[in-house]
Protein backbone atom coordinates (compact mmCIF):
# COMPACT_ATOMS: atom_id res chain seq x y z
CA UNK A 1 0.00 0.00 0.00
CA UNK A 2 1.28 3.43 -0.87
CA UNK A 3 0.64 6.33 1.47
CA UNK A 4 -0.11 9.55 -0.36
CA UNK A 5 -0.52 12.84 1.44
CA UNK A 6 -3.07 15.34 0.19
CA UNK A 7 -1.76 17.34 -2.70
CA UNK A 8 1.02 14.87 -3.45
CA UNK A 9 1.37 13.25 -6.86
CA UNK A 10 -0.42 9.94 -7.43
CA UNK A 11 1.03 6.68 -6.18
CA UNK A 12 3.20 6.01 -9.15
CA UNK A 13 6.85 5.19 -9.00
CA UNK A 14 7.68 7.59 -11.76
CA UNK A 15 5.68 9.61 -14.22
CA UNK A 16 1.98 9.98 -14.62
CA UNK A 17 -0.15 6.86 -15.01
CA UNK A 18 -1.05 6.09 -18.60
CA UNK A 19 -4.32 7.22 -19.99
CA UNK A 20 -6.16 4.53 -21.93
CA UNK A 21 -7.47 7.07 -24.43
CA UNK A 22 -3.93 8.02 -25.32
CA UNK A 23 -3.52 4.51 -26.65
CA UNK A 24 -6.84 4.58 -28.48
CA UNK A 25 -8.37 2.18 -26.02
CA UNK A 26 -10.60 2.37 -23.00
CA UNK A 27 -12.96 4.64 -24.86
CA UNK A 28 -15.68 2.17 -25.71
CA UNK A 29 -19.22 3.45 -25.32
CA UNK A 30 -21.79 1.43 -23.42
CA UNK A 31 -23.96 1.02 -26.54
CA UNK A 32 -22.57 -1.00 -29.46
CA UNK A 33 -21.92 1.20 -32.46
CA UNK A 34 -22.11 -1.59 -34.99
CA UNK A 35 -25.22 -3.74 -35.13
CA UNK A 36 -24.79 -7.27 -36.45
CA UNK A 37 -27.27 -9.75 -37.86
CA UNK A 38 -27.21 -12.42 -35.16
CA UNK A 39 -26.64 -10.00 -32.27
CA UNK A 40 -23.55 -9.09 -30.26
CA UNK A 41 -21.92 -12.50 -30.61
CA UNK A 42 -21.78 -12.11 -34.40
CA UNK A 43 -19.21 -9.34 -33.92
CA UNK A 44 -16.80 -12.11 -32.86
CA UNK A 45 -16.97 -13.71 -36.33
CA UNK A 46 -13.82 -12.07 -37.79
CA UNK A 47 -11.69 -13.04 -34.80
CA UNK A 48 -13.31 -16.48 -34.48
CA UNK A 49 -12.70 -17.16 -38.18
CA UNK A 50 -9.10 -16.05 -37.80
CA UNK A 51 -8.56 -18.30 -34.76
CA UNK A 52 -10.08 -21.25 -36.63
CA UNK A 53 -7.83 -20.50 -39.61
CA UNK A 54 -4.80 -20.29 -37.30
CA UNK A 55 -5.68 -23.63 -35.65
CA UNK A 56 -6.06 -25.36 -39.02
CA UNK A 57 -2.95 -23.74 -40.52
CA UNK A 58 -0.53 -24.04 -37.62
CA UNK A 59 -2.12 -26.76 -35.47
CA UNK A 60 -3.54 -29.21 -38.02
CA UNK A 61 -1.40 -28.59 -41.10
CA UNK A 62 1.74 -27.62 -39.19
CA UNK A 63 2.47 -24.53 -41.29
CA UNK A 64 4.18 -21.83 -39.25
CA UNK A 65 3.80 -19.05 -41.82
CA UNK A 66 2.75 -15.66 -40.46
CA UNK A 67 1.84 -14.42 -43.96
CA UNK A 68 -0.72 -17.24 -44.12
CA UNK A 69 -2.31 -15.93 -40.93
CA UNK A 70 -2.50 -12.47 -42.52
CA UNK A 71 -4.67 -13.90 -45.29
CA UNK A 72 -6.88 -15.63 -42.71
CA UNK A 73 -7.30 -12.33 -40.86
CA UNK A 74 -8.14 -10.48 -44.09
CA UNK A 75 -10.81 -13.02 -45.06
CA UNK A 76 -12.26 -13.03 -41.54
CA UNK A 77 -12.44 -9.23 -41.48
CA UNK A 78 -14.17 -9.19 -44.87
CA UNK A 79 -16.68 -11.90 -43.88
CA UNK A 80 -17.73 -9.96 -40.77
CA UNK A 81 -18.82 -7.02 -42.90
CA UNK A 82 -21.56 -9.08 -44.57
CA UNK A 83 -23.28 -9.53 -41.21
CA UNK A 84 -23.53 -5.81 -40.46
CA UNK A 85 -27.00 -4.27 -40.39
CA UNK A 86 -27.32 -0.87 -42.07
CA UNK A 87 -24.40 1.17 -43.33
CA UNK A 88 -21.20 -0.83 -43.78
CA UNK A 89 -19.18 2.37 -43.50
CA UNK A 90 -19.19 2.16 -39.70
CA UNK A 91 -17.61 -1.30 -39.98
CA UNK A 92 -14.92 -0.03 -42.33
CA UNK A 93 -14.29 2.96 -40.07
CA UNK A 94 -13.83 0.60 -37.11
CA UNK A 95 -11.09 -1.26 -38.99
CA UNK A 96 -9.22 2.05 -39.29
CA UNK A 97 -10.00 2.90 -35.67
CA UNK A 98 -8.54 -0.40 -34.51
CA UNK A 99 -5.43 -0.19 -36.66
CA UNK A 100 -4.58 3.30 -35.45
CA UNK A 101 -4.59 2.32 -31.76
CA UNK A 102 -1.39 3.26 -30.07
CA UNK A 103 -1.13 -0.17 -28.44
CA UNK A 104 -0.32 -1.59 -31.87
CA UNK A 105 1.99 1.26 -32.90
CA UNK A 106 4.05 0.95 -29.71
CA UNK A 107 4.66 -2.75 -30.28
CA UNK A 108 5.47 -2.18 -33.96
CA UNK A 109 8.06 0.49 -33.23
CA UNK A 110 9.73 -1.71 -30.61
CA UNK A 111 9.78 -4.71 -32.98
CA UNK A 112 11.49 -2.75 -35.74
CA UNK A 113 14.31 -1.66 -33.45
CA UNK A 114 14.54 -5.08 -31.77
CA UNK A 115 14.77 -6.76 -35.19
CA UNK A 116 17.70 -4.59 -36.27
CA UNK A 117 19.51 -5.22 -32.99
CA UNK A 118 18.97 -8.99 -33.01
CA UNK A 119 20.20 -9.42 -36.57
CA UNK A 120 23.25 -7.25 -35.93
CA UNK A 121 24.23 -9.51 -33.01
CA UNK A 122 23.79 -12.53 -35.26
CA UNK A 123 26.13 -11.22 -37.97
CA UNK A 124 28.56 -10.23 -35.23
CA UNK A 125 29.14 -13.89 -34.35
CA UNK A 126 27.26 -14.00 -31.03
CA UNK A 127 26.27 -17.66 -31.53
CA UNK A 128 29.82 -18.64 -32.46
CA UNK A 129 30.96 -16.89 -29.28
CA UNK A 130 28.57 -18.93 -27.16
CA UNK A 131 29.79 -22.16 -28.77
CA UNK A 132 33.34 -21.04 -28.01
CA UNK A 133 32.36 -20.56 -24.35
CA UNK A 134 30.96 -24.10 -24.19
CA UNK A 135 34.15 -25.43 -25.76
CA UNK A 136 36.43 -23.57 -23.35
CA UNK A 137 34.38 -24.72 -20.37
CA UNK A 138 34.91 -28.28 -21.59
CA UNK A 139 31.24 -29.13 -21.67
CA UNK A 140 30.76 -32.90 -22.13
CA UNK A 141 27.87 -34.99 -23.50
CA UNK A 142 26.04 -35.21 -20.14
CA UNK A 143 26.25 -31.48 -19.39
CA UNK A 144 25.74 -30.31 -22.99
CA UNK A 145 21.91 -30.01 -22.71
CA UNK A 146 22.19 -27.94 -19.50
CA UNK A 147 24.79 -25.72 -21.18
CA UNK A 148 22.58 -25.42 -24.28
CA UNK A 149 19.70 -24.28 -22.08
CA UNK A 150 21.78 -21.56 -20.43
CA UNK A 151 23.51 -20.35 -23.60
CA UNK A 152 20.37 -20.41 -25.76
CA UNK A 153 18.61 -18.58 -22.91
CA UNK A 154 21.36 -15.96 -23.01
CA UNK A 155 21.14 -15.58 -26.78
CA UNK A 156 17.35 -15.35 -26.71
CA UNK A 157 17.51 -12.79 -23.90
CA UNK A 158 19.92 -10.77 -26.01
CA UNK A 159 18.22 -10.89 -29.37
CA UNK A 160 14.66 -11.20 -28.09
CA UNK A 161 13.48 -13.76 -30.59
CA UNK A 162 13.01 -17.30 -29.40
CA UNK A 163 12.39 -18.47 -32.97
CA UNK A 164 15.65 -16.89 -34.15
CA UNK A 165 17.57 -18.38 -31.23
CA UNK A 166 16.08 -21.81 -31.91
CA UNK A 167 17.14 -21.65 -35.56
CA UNK A 168 20.64 -20.44 -34.65
CA UNK A 169 21.17 -23.06 -31.97
CA UNK A 170 19.66 -26.00 -33.85
CA UNK A 171 21.80 -25.05 -36.86
CA UNK A 172 25.10 -24.68 -35.00
CA UNK A 173 24.95 -25.94 -31.42
CA UNK A 174 22.67 -28.97 -31.83
CA UNK A 175 24.87 -30.95 -34.27
CA UNK A 176 27.95 -30.13 -32.19
CA UNK A 177 26.25 -31.59 -29.09
CA UNK A 178 24.88 -34.67 -30.84
CA UNK A 179 28.28 -35.40 -32.36
CA UNK A 180 29.93 -35.46 -28.94
CA UNK A 181 27.25 -37.85 -27.66
CA UNK A 182 24.42 -35.77 -26.11
CA UNK A 183 20.84 -37.05 -26.41
CA UNK A 184 19.26 -35.34 -29.46
CA UNK A 185 15.80 -35.29 -27.88
CA UNK A 186 17.02 -33.73 -24.65
CA UNK A 187 19.29 -31.28 -26.48
CA UNK A 188 16.51 -30.05 -28.77
CA UNK A 189 14.23 -29.68 -25.75
CA UNK A 190 16.94 -27.76 -23.87
CA UNK A 191 17.34 -25.36 -26.79
CA UNK A 192 13.57 -24.83 -26.83
CA UNK A 193 13.67 -24.18 -23.08
CA UNK A 194 16.34 -21.54 -23.60
CA UNK A 195 14.12 -19.94 -26.25
CA UNK A 196 11.22 -19.90 -23.77
CA UNK A 197 13.43 -18.21 -21.17
CA UNK A 198 14.53 -15.44 -23.53
CA UNK A 199 11.14 -14.94 -25.14
CA UNK A 200 9.66 -14.54 -21.67
CA UNK A 201 12.31 -12.29 -20.14
CA UNK A 202 14.07 -10.28 -22.87
CA UNK A 203 13.11 -6.61 -23.03
CA UNK A 204 13.43 -6.78 -26.82
CA UNK A 205 11.25 -9.90 -27.13
CA UNK A 206 8.06 -9.42 -29.15
CA UNK A 207 5.98 -11.20 -26.50
CA UNK A 208 7.49 -9.11 -23.67
CA UNK A 209 6.69 -5.94 -25.58
CA UNK A 210 3.11 -6.98 -26.31
CA UNK A 211 2.51 -8.12 -22.73
CA UNK A 212 3.73 -4.78 -21.37
CA UNK A 213 2.07 -2.34 -23.75
CA UNK A 214 -1.32 -4.09 -23.70
CA UNK A 215 -1.37 -3.91 -19.89
CA UNK A 216 -0.23 -0.26 -19.72
CA UNK A 217 3.06 -1.18 -18.09
CA UNK A 218 6.61 -0.06 -18.86
CA UNK A 219 8.82 -2.75 -20.44
CA UNK A 220 11.77 -2.28 -18.08
CA UNK A 221 9.52 -2.62 -15.02
CA UNK A 222 7.87 -5.70 -16.48
CA UNK A 223 11.25 -7.37 -17.09
CA UNK A 224 12.35 -6.61 -13.53
CA UNK A 225 9.10 -7.91 -12.02
CA UNK A 226 9.25 -11.01 -14.23
CA UNK A 227 12.68 -12.02 -13.04
CA UNK A 228 11.43 -13.85 -9.93
CA UNK A 229 9.08 -16.10 -11.91
CA UNK A 230 11.67 -16.81 -14.62
CA UNK A 231 14.33 -17.79 -12.09
CA UNK A 232 11.87 -19.90 -10.07
CA UNK A 233 11.33 -21.99 -13.21
CA UNK A 234 14.87 -21.82 -14.65
CA UNK A 235 16.76 -23.20 -11.64
CA UNK A 236 14.82 -26.49 -11.42
CA UNK A 237 14.92 -26.71 -15.23
CA UNK A 238 18.72 -26.40 -15.21
CA UNK A 239 18.96 -29.12 -12.54
CA UNK A 240 16.57 -31.33 -14.54
CA UNK A 241 18.77 -31.01 -17.65
CA UNK A 242 21.86 -31.92 -15.64
CA UNK A 243 20.13 -35.00 -14.20
CA UNK A 244 18.50 -36.14 -17.43
CA UNK A 245 21.72 -35.44 -19.37
CA UNK A 246 23.32 -38.26 -17.40
CA UNK A 247 20.31 -40.54 -17.79
CA UNK A 248 19.46 -40.13 -21.48
CA UNK A 249 22.01 -41.50 -23.91
CA UNK A 250 23.23 -40.13 -27.24
CA UNK A 251 22.95 -41.72 -30.66
CA UNK A 252 26.62 -42.66 -31.17
CA UNK A 253 27.36 -40.64 -34.28
CA UNK A 254 30.98 -40.82 -35.31
CA UNK A 255 32.86 -37.80 -36.50
CA UNK A 256 34.49 -34.64 -35.29
CA UNK A 257 32.34 -31.73 -34.28
CA UNK A 258 33.50 -29.64 -37.20
CA UNK A 259 31.11 -26.87 -36.41
CA UNK A 260 32.90 -26.24 -33.14
CA UNK A 261 35.87 -25.13 -35.21
CA UNK A 262 33.84 -22.14 -36.32
CA UNK A 263 33.63 -21.00 -32.70
CA UNK A 264 35.37 -17.72 -31.97
CA UNK A 265 35.70 -15.78 -28.74
CA UNK A 266 35.16 -12.18 -29.94
CA UNK A 267 31.44 -12.77 -30.54
CA UNK A 268 31.08 -12.91 -26.76
CA UNK A 269 31.68 -9.14 -26.74
CA UNK A 270 28.04 -8.86 -27.66
CA UNK A 271 27.16 -9.90 -24.12
CA UNK A 272 27.99 -6.24 -23.43
CA UNK A 273 25.70 -5.02 -26.25
CA UNK A 274 22.95 -7.17 -24.74
CA UNK A 275 23.70 -5.91 -21.22
CA UNK A 276 23.43 -2.29 -22.41
CA UNK A 277 19.88 -2.90 -23.68
CA UNK A 278 18.76 -4.72 -20.53
CA UNK A 279 20.32 -2.18 -18.16
CA UNK A 280 18.93 0.88 -19.93
CA UNK A 281 15.47 -0.71 -20.33
CA UNK A 282 15.30 -1.68 -16.64
CA UNK A 283 16.51 1.84 -15.77
CA UNK A 284 13.22 3.03 -17.26
CA UNK A 285 14.46 4.48 -20.54
CA UNK A 286 12.26 4.25 -23.61
CA UNK A 287 12.68 0.88 -25.35
CA UNK A 288 13.65 2.64 -28.60
CA UNK A 289 16.37 4.51 -26.74
CA UNK A 290 17.53 1.36 -24.92
CA UNK A 291 17.80 -0.70 -28.11
CA UNK A 292 19.38 2.18 -30.01
CA UNK A 293 22.19 2.33 -27.45
CA UNK A 294 22.63 -1.44 -27.71
CA UNK A 295 22.66 -1.14 -31.48
CA UNK A 296 25.32 1.60 -31.40
CA UNK A 297 27.51 -0.56 -29.15
CA UNK A 298 26.94 -3.68 -31.30
CA UNK A 299 27.78 -1.87 -34.55
CA UNK A 300 30.89 -0.34 -32.97
CA UNK A 301 32.07 -3.76 -31.72
CA UNK A 302 31.41 -5.34 -35.12
CA UNK A 303 33.46 -2.69 -36.94
CA UNK A 304 36.24 -2.10 -34.39
CA UNK A 305 36.91 -5.78 -33.66
CA UNK A 306 36.23 -7.00 -37.20
CA UNK A 307 33.26 -9.17 -36.13
CA UNK A 308 31.29 -8.01 -39.17
CA UNK A 309 31.85 -5.61 -42.01
CA UNK A 310 29.81 -2.50 -42.73
CA UNK A 311 28.23 -4.32 -45.67
CA UNK A 312 27.12 -7.15 -43.35
CA UNK A 313 24.96 -4.55 -41.63
CA UNK A 314 23.87 -2.33 -44.52
CA UNK A 315 24.55 -3.05 -48.17
CA UNK A 316 23.31 -1.52 -51.42
CA UNK A 317 23.70 -4.01 -54.24
CA UNK A 318 23.86 -2.53 -57.74
CA UNK A 319 24.05 -4.39 -61.05
CA UNK A 320 26.74 -2.20 -62.62
CA UNK A 321 29.79 -0.52 -61.16
CA UNK A 322 29.45 3.25 -60.77
CA UNK A 323 30.77 6.24 -58.89
CA UNK A 324 29.67 4.90 -55.47
CA UNK A 325 30.79 1.29 -55.80
CA UNK A 326 34.00 2.11 -53.97
CA UNK A 327 32.07 2.67 -50.77
CA UNK A 328 32.13 -0.18 -48.23
CA UNK A 329 28.35 -0.43 -48.24
CA UNK A 330 27.91 -0.56 -52.01
CA UNK A 331 28.50 -3.81 -53.89
CA UNK A 332 28.03 -5.05 -57.42
CA UNK A 333 25.79 -8.11 -57.75
CA UNK A 334 23.36 -9.86 -60.05
CA UNK A 335 20.23 -8.34 -58.54
CA UNK A 336 19.85 -4.77 -57.32
CA UNK A 337 18.60 -4.36 -53.78
CA UNK A 338 19.24 -3.37 -50.18
CA UNK A 339 20.40 -5.85 -47.56
CA UNK A 340 22.36 -6.32 -44.35
CA UNK A 341 21.41 -7.00 -40.77
CA UNK A 342 19.60 -3.69 -40.22
CA UNK A 343 17.50 -4.32 -43.31
CA UNK A 344 16.82 -8.02 -42.70
CA UNK A 345 16.14 -7.48 -38.99
CA UNK A 346 13.47 -4.84 -39.57
CA UNK A 347 11.93 -6.48 -42.64
CA UNK A 348 11.65 -9.80 -40.79
CA UNK A 349 8.95 -8.27 -38.60
CA UNK A 350 6.81 -6.92 -41.46
CA UNK A 351 4.45 -9.94 -41.64
CA UNK A 352 3.92 -9.84 -37.87
CA UNK A 353 3.28 -6.08 -38.02
CA UNK A 354 0.59 -6.47 -40.67
CA UNK A 355 -0.96 -9.33 -38.71
CA UNK A 356 -0.97 -7.26 -35.53
CA UNK A 357 -2.76 -4.39 -37.25
CA UNK A 358 -5.44 -6.78 -38.49
CA UNK A 359 -5.87 -8.50 -35.11
CA UNK A 360 -6.35 -5.21 -33.24
CA UNK A 361 -8.80 -4.15 -35.95
CA UNK A 362 -10.78 -7.39 -35.46
CA UNK A 363 -10.70 -6.89 -31.69
CA UNK A 364 -12.03 -3.35 -32.14
CA UNK A 365 -14.87 -4.67 -34.32
CA UNK A 366 -15.73 -7.04 -31.48
CA UNK A 367 -15.64 -4.20 -28.95
CA UNK A 368 -17.85 -1.94 -31.09
CA UNK A 369 -20.22 -4.81 -31.83
CA UNK A 370 -20.66 -5.71 -28.14
CA UNK A 371 -19.18 -9.20 -28.39
CA UNK A 372 -16.18 -8.34 -26.26
CA UNK A 373 -18.38 -7.10 -23.42
CA UNK A 374 -20.62 -10.17 -23.67
CA UNK A 375 -17.72 -12.60 -23.26
CA UNK A 376 -16.23 -10.50 -20.49
CA UNK A 377 -19.52 -10.43 -18.57
CA UNK A 378 -19.89 -14.18 -18.97
CA UNK A 379 -16.41 -14.77 -17.55
CA UNK A 380 -16.80 -12.30 -14.70
CA UNK A 381 -20.29 -13.52 -13.72
CA UNK A 382 -19.70 -17.25 -13.93
CA UNK A 383 -15.99 -18.08 -13.78
CA UNK A 384 -13.81 -15.29 -12.41
CA UNK A 385 -15.82 -14.62 -9.25
CA UNK A 386 -12.89 -14.24 -6.82
CA UNK A 387 -9.40 -12.86 -7.35
CA UNK A 388 -7.88 -16.36 -7.18
CA UNK A 389 -10.37 -17.70 -9.73
CA UNK A 390 -9.81 -14.61 -11.86
CA UNK A 391 -6.07 -15.23 -11.95
CA UNK A 392 -6.61 -18.92 -12.70
CA UNK A 393 -8.98 -17.91 -15.51
CA UNK A 394 -6.29 -15.59 -16.87
CA UNK A 395 -3.59 -18.29 -16.65
CA UNK A 396 -5.72 -21.07 -18.15
CA UNK A 397 -7.31 -18.79 -20.76
CA UNK A 398 -3.88 -17.72 -21.97
CA UNK A 399 -2.74 -21.34 -21.99
CA UNK A 400 -5.79 -22.42 -23.99
CA UNK A 401 -5.48 -19.76 -26.67
CA UNK A 402 -1.73 -20.38 -26.96
CA UNK A 403 -2.31 -24.11 -27.23
CA UNK A 404 -4.55 -23.41 -30.23
CA UNK A 405 -2.83 -20.48 -31.97
CA UNK A 406 0.76 -21.54 -32.05
CA UNK A 407 2.22 -18.34 -33.46
CA UNK A 408 2.49 -17.17 -29.90
CA UNK A 409 2.59 -13.41 -30.43
CA UNK A 410 -0.65 -13.59 -32.42
CA UNK A 411 -2.27 -15.57 -29.60
CA UNK A 412 -1.04 -13.07 -27.03
CA UNK A 413 -2.48 -10.08 -28.88
CA UNK A 414 -5.85 -11.85 -29.20
CA UNK A 415 -6.17 -12.64 -25.46
CA UNK A 416 -4.57 -9.42 -24.13
CA UNK A 417 -7.78 -7.33 -23.86
CA UNK A 418 -9.41 -10.01 -21.65
CA UNK A 419 -6.40 -10.25 -19.39
CA UNK A 420 -6.45 -6.47 -19.01
CA UNK A 421 -10.13 -6.17 -18.23
CA UNK A 422 -10.50 -9.23 -15.98
CA UNK A 423 -7.37 -8.24 -14.05
CA UNK A 424 -8.52 -4.65 -13.70
CA UNK A 425 -11.88 -5.82 -12.30
CA UNK A 426 -9.87 -7.08 -9.30
CA UNK A 427 -7.39 -4.16 -9.32
CA UNK A 428 -4.49 -6.44 -10.26
CA UNK A 429 -1.68 -4.17 -11.41
CA UNK A 430 -0.16 -3.95 -14.88
CA UNK A 431 3.02 -5.84 -14.02
CA UNK A 432 1.15 -8.83 -12.60
CA UNK A 433 -1.21 -8.93 -15.59
CA UNK A 434 1.67 -8.65 -18.08
CA UNK A 435 3.50 -11.50 -16.35
CA UNK A 436 0.49 -13.81 -16.34
CA UNK A 437 -0.12 -12.97 -20.01
CA UNK A 438 3.43 -13.66 -21.16
CA UNK A 439 4.32 -16.80 -19.17
CA UNK A 440 2.09 -19.27 -20.99
CA UNK A 441 2.50 -17.37 -24.24
CA UNK A 442 6.23 -17.94 -24.11
CA UNK A 443 6.05 -21.47 -22.69
CA UNK A 444 3.42 -23.11 -24.87
CA UNK A 445 4.84 -21.63 -28.05
CA UNK A 446 7.75 -24.06 -27.66
CA UNK A 447 6.24 -27.23 -26.18
CA UNK A 448 3.63 -28.84 -28.41
CA UNK A 449 4.60 -30.44 -31.74
CA UNK A 450 2.49 -27.93 -33.67
CA UNK A 451 3.99 -24.89 -31.85
CA UNK A 452 5.76 -22.34 -34.03
CA UNK A 453 9.00 -22.53 -32.04
CA UNK A 454 9.18 -26.33 -32.35
CA UNK A 455 8.33 -26.21 -36.03
CA UNK A 456 11.11 -23.74 -36.92
CA UNK A 457 13.68 -25.93 -35.16
CA UNK A 458 12.31 -29.08 -36.79
CA UNK A 459 12.45 -27.35 -40.17
CA UNK A 460 16.21 -26.86 -39.74
CA UNK A 461 16.52 -30.63 -39.29
CA UNK A 462 14.28 -31.81 -42.13
CA UNK A 463 14.46 -28.91 -44.59
CA UNK A 464 16.46 -28.86 -47.84
CA UNK A 465 20.15 -29.30 -47.00
CA UNK A 466 19.02 -29.74 -43.39
CA UNK A 467 20.77 -31.61 -40.61
CA UNK A 468 19.10 -34.92 -41.52
CA UNK A 469 20.45 -34.71 -45.05
CA UNK A 470 23.90 -33.69 -43.87
CA UNK A 471 24.36 -36.10 -40.94
CA UNK A 472 21.68 -38.78 -41.28
CA UNK A 473 18.35 -39.55 -39.60
CA UNK A 474 19.91 -39.65 -36.10
CA UNK A 475 20.14 -35.86 -36.33
CA UNK A 476 16.34 -35.51 -36.73
CA UNK A 477 14.15 -35.41 -33.62
CA UNK A 478 10.45 -36.23 -33.70
CA UNK A 479 8.72 -33.13 -32.25
CA UNK A 480 6.34 -35.32 -30.21
CA UNK A 481 9.28 -36.78 -28.30
CA UNK A 482 10.48 -33.42 -26.98
CA UNK A 483 7.15 -32.46 -25.36
CA UNK A 484 7.90 -33.79 -21.83
CA UNK A 485 11.46 -32.44 -21.79
CA UNK A 486 10.88 -28.72 -22.43
CA UNK A 487 11.41 -28.31 -18.70
CA UNK A 488 11.57 -24.52 -18.46
CA UNK A 489 8.31 -24.23 -20.39
CA UNK A 490 6.48 -26.69 -18.16
CA UNK A 491 7.95 -25.24 -14.97
CA UNK A 492 6.90 -21.74 -16.02
CA UNK A 493 3.31 -22.95 -16.48
CA UNK A 494 3.43 -24.64 -13.06
CA UNK A 495 4.96 -21.55 -11.39
CA UNK A 496 2.07 -19.41 -12.63
CA UNK A 497 -0.60 -21.91 -11.65
CA UNK A 498 0.92 -21.97 -8.15
CA UNK A 499 1.28 -18.17 -8.19
CA UNK A 500 -2.44 -17.78 -8.94
CA UNK A 501 -3.39 -20.22 -6.19
CA UNK A 502 -0.97 -19.00 -3.50
CA UNK A 503 -0.76 -15.29 -4.38
CA UNK A 504 3.01 -15.49 -5.01
CA UNK A 505 4.06 -12.24 -6.70
CA UNK A 506 0.52 -10.83 -6.69
CA UNK A 507 0.43 -7.04 -6.75
CA UNK A 508 -2.60 -4.76 -6.71
CA UNK A 509 -2.92 -1.36 -8.36
CA UNK A 510 -2.77 0.47 -4.98
CA UNK A 511 0.54 -1.31 -4.21
CA UNK A 512 2.41 0.04 -7.18
CA UNK A 513 1.13 1.48 -10.40
CA UNK A 514 3.01 0.95 -13.64
CA UNK A 515 5.13 3.68 -15.08
CA UNK A 516 3.74 5.21 -18.21
CA UNK A 517 4.06 3.22 -21.39
CA UNK A 518 5.57 6.07 -23.34
CA UNK A 519 8.66 5.56 -21.18
CA UNK A 520 8.52 1.84 -21.86
Amino acid sequence: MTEIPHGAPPATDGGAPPDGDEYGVGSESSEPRIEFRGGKWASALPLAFFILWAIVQSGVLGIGDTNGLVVGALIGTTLGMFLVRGDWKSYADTIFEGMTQRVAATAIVAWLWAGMFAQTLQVGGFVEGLIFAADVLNVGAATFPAAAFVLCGLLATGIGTGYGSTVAFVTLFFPAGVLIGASPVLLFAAILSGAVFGDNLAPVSDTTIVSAVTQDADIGGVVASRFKYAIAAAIPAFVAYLVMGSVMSGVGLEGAAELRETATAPGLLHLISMGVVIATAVAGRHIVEAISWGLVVAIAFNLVFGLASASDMVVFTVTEAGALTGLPVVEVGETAGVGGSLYAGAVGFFPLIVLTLLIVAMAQIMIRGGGFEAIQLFLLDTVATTVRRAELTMVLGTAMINGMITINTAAEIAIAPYIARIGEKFNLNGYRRANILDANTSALGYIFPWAGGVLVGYQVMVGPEGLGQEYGPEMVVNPIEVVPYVFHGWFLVIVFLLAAITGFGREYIPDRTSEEVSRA
Partner: protein
Amino acid sequence: MSRFEKFFAGLSFRGSTPDYAPGDAIEVMVTETRGETAIARIGDSTLRIEGTPADAENTRVLVDVETWDEESHSGTGTYRETVGKSAF
Protein backbone atom coordinates in the same frame (compact mmCIF):
# COMPACT_ATOMS: atom_id res chain seq x y z
CA MET B 1 11.64 3.01 -6.72
CA SER B 2 15.26 2.15 -7.49
CA ARG B 3 16.31 -0.19 -10.29
CA PHE B 4 17.36 -2.77 -7.70
CA GLU B 5 14.06 -2.57 -5.81
CA LYS B 6 12.12 -3.21 -9.01
CA PHE B 7 13.51 -6.74 -9.13
CA PHE B 8 12.22 -7.55 -5.65
CA ALA B 9 8.88 -5.73 -5.73
CA GLY B 10 6.01 -8.15 -5.18
CA LEU B 11 8.29 -10.93 -3.99
CA SER B 12 5.82 -12.28 -1.44
CA PHE B 13 2.69 -14.39 -1.05
CA ARG B 14 -0.07 -11.80 -1.25
CA GLY B 15 -3.51 -12.53 0.19
CA SER B 16 -6.85 -12.18 -1.58
CA THR B 17 -8.18 -9.53 0.78
CA PRO B 18 -5.82 -6.55 1.13
CA ASP B 19 -6.63 -4.19 3.99
CA TYR B 20 -6.24 -0.44 4.25
CA ALA B 21 -6.51 2.11 7.07
CA PRO B 22 -8.39 5.37 7.44
CA GLY B 23 -6.12 8.15 6.25
CA ASP B 24 -4.57 6.12 3.45
CA ALA B 25 -4.68 7.66 0.00
CA ILE B 26 -4.73 4.97 -2.66
CA GLU B 27 -5.03 4.79 -6.42
CA VAL B 28 -7.63 2.27 -7.57
CA MET B 29 -9.59 1.21 -10.64
CA VAL B 30 -13.35 1.76 -10.21
CA THR B 31 -14.69 -1.69 -11.05
CA GLU B 32 -18.47 -1.25 -10.84
CA THR B 33 -21.27 1.16 -10.02
CA ARG B 34 -24.10 0.25 -7.63
CA GLY B 35 -26.84 2.82 -7.84
CA GLU B 36 -24.90 6.07 -7.70
CA THR B 37 -22.01 4.68 -5.68
CA ALA B 38 -18.74 3.69 -7.29
CA ILE B 39 -17.11 0.49 -6.04
CA ALA B 40 -13.48 -0.53 -6.32
CA ARG B 41 -12.93 -4.24 -5.87
CA ILE B 42 -9.33 -4.78 -4.79
CA GLY B 43 -8.76 -8.52 -4.83
CA ASP B 44 -11.76 -9.74 -2.83
CA SER B 45 -11.89 -6.56 -0.70
CA THR B 46 -14.29 -3.73 -1.56
CA LEU B 47 -14.03 0.03 -1.27
CA ARG B 48 -17.14 2.22 -1.71
CA ILE B 49 -16.16 5.60 -3.11
CA GLU B 50 -18.25 8.74 -2.59
CA GLY B 51 -18.21 11.76 -4.84
CA THR B 52 -17.00 10.17 -8.06
CA PRO B 53 -18.00 11.50 -11.49
CA ALA B 54 -20.96 9.68 -13.07
CA ASP B 55 -18.75 7.92 -15.62
CA ALA B 56 -16.13 6.75 -13.13
CA GLU B 57 -16.41 3.02 -13.90
CA ASN B 58 -13.24 1.65 -15.54
CA THR B 59 -11.25 4.76 -14.62
CA ARG B 60 -8.35 4.96 -12.19
CA VAL B 61 -9.02 7.33 -9.35
CA LEU B 62 -7.20 8.62 -6.30
CA VAL B 63 -9.21 7.95 -3.13
CA ASP B 64 -8.88 9.00 0.52
CA VAL B 65 -9.83 5.99 2.66
CA GLU B 66 -12.26 7.15 5.38
CA THR B 67 -13.28 3.89 7.12
CA TRP B 68 -12.09 0.29 6.93
CA ASP B 69 -13.38 -2.92 8.53
CA GLU B 70 -10.67 -5.57 8.62
CA GLU B 71 -13.17 -8.37 9.35
CA SER B 72 -15.31 -7.81 6.27
CA HIS B 73 -12.36 -6.39 4.29
CA SER B 74 -14.44 -3.45 3.14
CA GLY B 75 -14.42 0.28 3.63
CA THR B 76 -15.44 3.67 2.36
CA GLY B 77 -13.49 6.49 0.81
CA THR B 78 -13.77 9.85 -0.88
CA TYR B 79 -12.90 10.56 -4.48
CA ARG B 80 -10.03 12.97 -4.94
CA GLU B 81 -9.24 12.96 -8.65
CA THR B 82 -9.23 10.83 -11.81
CA VAL B 83 -5.74 9.79 -12.84
CA GLY B 84 -6.22 7.34 -15.71
CA LYS B 85 -8.40 4.88 -17.57
CA SER B 86 -8.68 1.18 -18.32
CA ALA B 87 -6.03 -0.37 -20.54
CA PHE B 88 -8.84 -1.59 -22.85
